[in-house]
């Protein structure tokens, strides 16, 4: 393959079937034994507006979208549905071509639907093609689709053209189409496919670009899965049987997957009036003895601040999911950012605590969602799974065996009726559900309906049986006990091996730190930097509260300097690290990106070399460097 891999970008308008086509393309190649990784870019509207999906395909494992791309399939057309002259989204017919050229790598391929798009509308098109050594294929995909079926099948024609140029065996794609399409649609699609494939063979030099996708071989069964899928399946496998939510991009994906699958396993999903209600419902179900979750994106999560505090005070276990998107306020609904970190860590009043996980990819999202439930129910504390629009929507291949784990119906620290008979009660006959003097700060709870377990759960400070109290001694005891749980959780998490990801040579001179969705991209950048002769390693942190103080301290101590990479403007993760560690201001500098697009590995490589190694200034404004305190 050119540059060792194919990064295929399919571009068009929202509603053109870009997402489903790219998903099938990726799945077919995964079935053919290759590693795949997809990246979505879409506007906050339903029809029209420029959208694209990238499918990166490689013989070797891939962890990010990669740098740029080398194959453009420009479909287009949706824009014609905005016919008003001078309308804001007015004449955008050429956008699938014009919007995408900047990132197309040298020597890349352009396939465009000449039935819909005209390169004459793009200034300097021919010059740019010549300068960059691009290979251009103008094929009337629309007409081919119309001749054999319907116009929407031009997606199939485009995939066929891709196969012809990139030497992808048609059988790979066709067998997937056969699996997914009803026969009535499958037959005409096959004709469209064959016609388009032959057109390239007969009328173009298909071998001109040096692009060839081989067939590979996976050692084991793979699944094509997103972070949102993994969070939902992790919750279901961990015994979560209740979800309440209100739709908000990109959290809606988790909510939807859960809602579609819960009834099948005897669970309950509730779409409710707002996010305050959603989180409160999760608390109500959990209080009544069911593993429950809720979630939202930044703006909706803001409304959950008060139920979150109530969960902490009443020690009601709950898992909340926060899918970050660019903010503040409603921000950019369909664009990723990592700027809700502080919001999630510190929202809610008083001395409040919660556990926060930030999974890096699909595999980790599954495991950490399960871990979040275990911690929440064992320690009776809210646990938050913090992810973002990027890892929520990216599809990647993961071994199916990752999900091959036993379900866990364990409700954590609860008492049985038999245990209640011997448990301490207060003079009123109520169960001392919030006892001061317990191991790890965890006082087991009873569930409504259990004989002998009556207690009052209250958001006010309370005595062991739940009676409201402002007694100073009790107050101190209760606060201390609730805080003690965080230390116990830290010890528990420290016993987990390999949760935070170390990558690169152990004795490296420099370090790069990141959290959540940028981990895979950082790791690819680290590989590239070491290949270039630099000495770099990385640490991807995915436990944010309680913070892995020792592990991170050891990492920072072991290198001369650390570049902290994150998708926000205020260096929130670097700030958290300094706050938790109480030092290292002089050792930590930041590489930030907050323009709505996630980092590409090359940007991290450039940022590192320019700012850390050469002590220079970054060009352009895609990324931003913030030096260490002493610089």
């Amino acid at each position, binding site marked *: 393959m050119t540059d060792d891999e194919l990064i295929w970008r399919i571009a068009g308008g929202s509603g053109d079937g870009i997402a489903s086509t790219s998903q099938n393309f990726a799945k077919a190649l995964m079935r053919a034994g290759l590693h795949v990784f997809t990246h979505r870019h879409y506007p906050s509207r339903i029809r029209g507006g420029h959208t694209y999906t990238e499918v990166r395909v490689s013989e070797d494992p891939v962890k990010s979208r990669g740098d740029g791309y080398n194959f453009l399939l420009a479909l287009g057309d949706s824009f014609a549905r905005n016919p008003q002259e001078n309308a804001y989204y007015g004449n955008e017919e050429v956008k699938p071509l014009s919007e995408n050229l900047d990132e197309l790598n040298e020597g890349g391929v352009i396939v465009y639907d000449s039935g819909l798009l005209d390169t004459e509308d793009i200034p300097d098109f021919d010059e740019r093609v010549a300068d960059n050594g691009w290979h251009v294929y103008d094929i009337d995909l629309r007409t081919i689709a119309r001749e054999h079926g319907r116009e929407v099948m031009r997606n199939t024609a485009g995939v066929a053209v891709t196969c012809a140029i990139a030497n992808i065996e048609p059988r790979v794609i066709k067998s997937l189409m056969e699996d997914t399409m009803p026969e009535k649609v499958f037959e005409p699609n096959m004709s469209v496919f064959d016609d388009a494939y032959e057109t390239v063979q007969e009328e173009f030099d298909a071998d001109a670009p040096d692009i060839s996708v081989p067939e590979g071989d996976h050692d084991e069964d793979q*699944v094509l899965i997103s972070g949102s899928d993994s969070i939902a399946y992790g919750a279901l496998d961990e015994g979560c049987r209740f979800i309440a939510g209100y739709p908000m991009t990109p959290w809606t994906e988790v909510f939807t997957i859960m809602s579609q699958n819960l009834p099948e*396993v005897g*669970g309950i999903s509730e779409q409710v009036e707002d996010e305050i209600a959603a989180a409160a419902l999760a608390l109500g179900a959990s209080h009544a003895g069911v593993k429950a979750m809720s979630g939202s994106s930044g703006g909706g999560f803001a409304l959950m601040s008060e139920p979150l505090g109530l969960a902490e005070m009443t020690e009601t276990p709950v898992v909340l999911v926060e899918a970050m998107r660019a903010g503040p306020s409603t921000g950019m609904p369909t664009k990723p950012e990592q700027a809700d970190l502080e919001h999630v860590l510190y929202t809610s009043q008083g001395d409040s605590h919660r556990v926060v996980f930030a999974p890096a990819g699909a595999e980790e999202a599954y495991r950490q969602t399960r871990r979040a439930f275990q911690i929440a129910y064992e320690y009776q504390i809210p646990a938050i799974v913090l992810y973002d629009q990027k890892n929520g929507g990216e599809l990647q291949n993961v071994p199916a065996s990752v999900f091959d784990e036993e379900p866990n119906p364990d409700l954590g620290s609860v008492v049985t*009726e038999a245990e209640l008979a011997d448990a301490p009660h207060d003079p009123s*006959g*109520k169960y001392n559900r919030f006892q001061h003097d317990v191991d790890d700060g965890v006082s087991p709870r009873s569930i409504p309906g259990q004989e002998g377990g009556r207690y009052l759960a209250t958001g006010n400070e309370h005595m062991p049986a739940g009676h409201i109290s402002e007694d100073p001694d009790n107050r101190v005891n209760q606060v201390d006990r609730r805080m003690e749980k965080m230390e116990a959780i830290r010890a528990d998490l420290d016993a987990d091996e390999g949760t935070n990801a170390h990558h690169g040579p152990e004795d490296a001179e420099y370090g790069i730190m990141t959290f959540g969705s940028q981990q895979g991209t950082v790791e690819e950048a680290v590989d590239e930097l070491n290949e270039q002769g630099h000495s770099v390693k990385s640490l991807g942190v995915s436990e944010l509260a309680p913070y892995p103080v020792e592990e991170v301290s050891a990492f920072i101590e072991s290198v001369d300097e650390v570049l902290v990479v994150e998708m926000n403007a205020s260096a929130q993760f670097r700030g958290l690290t300094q706050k938790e560690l109480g030092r290292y201001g002089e050792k930590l500098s930041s590489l930030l990106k907050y323009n709505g697009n996630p980092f590409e590995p090359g940007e991290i490589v450039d940022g590192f070399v320019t700012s850390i190694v050469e002590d220079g200034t970054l060009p352009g404004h895609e990324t931003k460097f913030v030096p260490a305190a002493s610089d």
Partner: protein
Amino acid sequence: MSAFSAIGEDVERDRNEYTPGLEPQPTWCPGCGDFGVLKALKGAAAELGLSPEEMLVCTGIGCSGKLNSYFDSYGFHTIHGRSLPIARAAKLANPGLTVVAAGGDGDGYGIGGNHFMHTARENHDITYIVFNNEIFGLTKGQTSPTSPKGHKSKTQPHGSAKDPIRPLSMSLNAGASYIARTAAVNPNQAKEIIVEAIEHDGFSHVDFLTQCPTWNKDAKQYVPYIDVNDSEDYEFDNTDRSEASEMMFETENALHEGTVLTGRYYVDDRPSYQQEKQRIGEIPDEPLAERYFDDDYEWERVYDSFLDKHK
């Protein structure tokens, strides 16, 4: 043994079984109407033979929110306006529980108004008692959504420019299937109504007039009430939506004019939310909460049924 042996047979009970020993003593002011709700709820629970441990009482914030401190059962004292979403999820999770939610007029019709509307619409099988004293009590006497127009308080020094909320009409239009108003000054009717409300299969809304001797000495709740269901002057069919609507309108006007009319205004036997959800296959037949304690229950593994579409 089931994990929830408190749920089941209704046996003869004494109202004192719901009194939590000597502590804590109610901190309500002498003469407060909230005592009337507590007494009525205890009487109703005893009459229904409910064990304290099969009851879950969810409250909001304010004087009314202390109800479950003085009523001995499982309790969830929540936050401002949020008792209903917590109550309804608990009921969905374990339908065997008798779930009662309670809050004040500010809590229920103000900050929790959105939840009130949607809980009524969905017709959850829970009972909601609103302590309506036309004032904020625990925050010290501010104008509430039910305070009459022109009501003066420290936060409305020129007198309220707003018409008060019409809780009964609002409830009917939102979709509650049992709607009644009673008053603390009428303990017998209050108890009967709460019994009916708990027995009713669907969302029961009881607007409970509670006098506030400290902050709202002018409230109409002190004047003798008329039970419209017993009065020949007010004969109407409370299963007829439009007749009920007219009666509510009259009742709400009368209160503003100084006459207190109470009674059962609307009873609708449409299926509860739980029943509807069960019918379409979105809620299990057996109580969900039981499963976590049921050793025989087979927990499904996700990869068996869901992962195929990702392959």
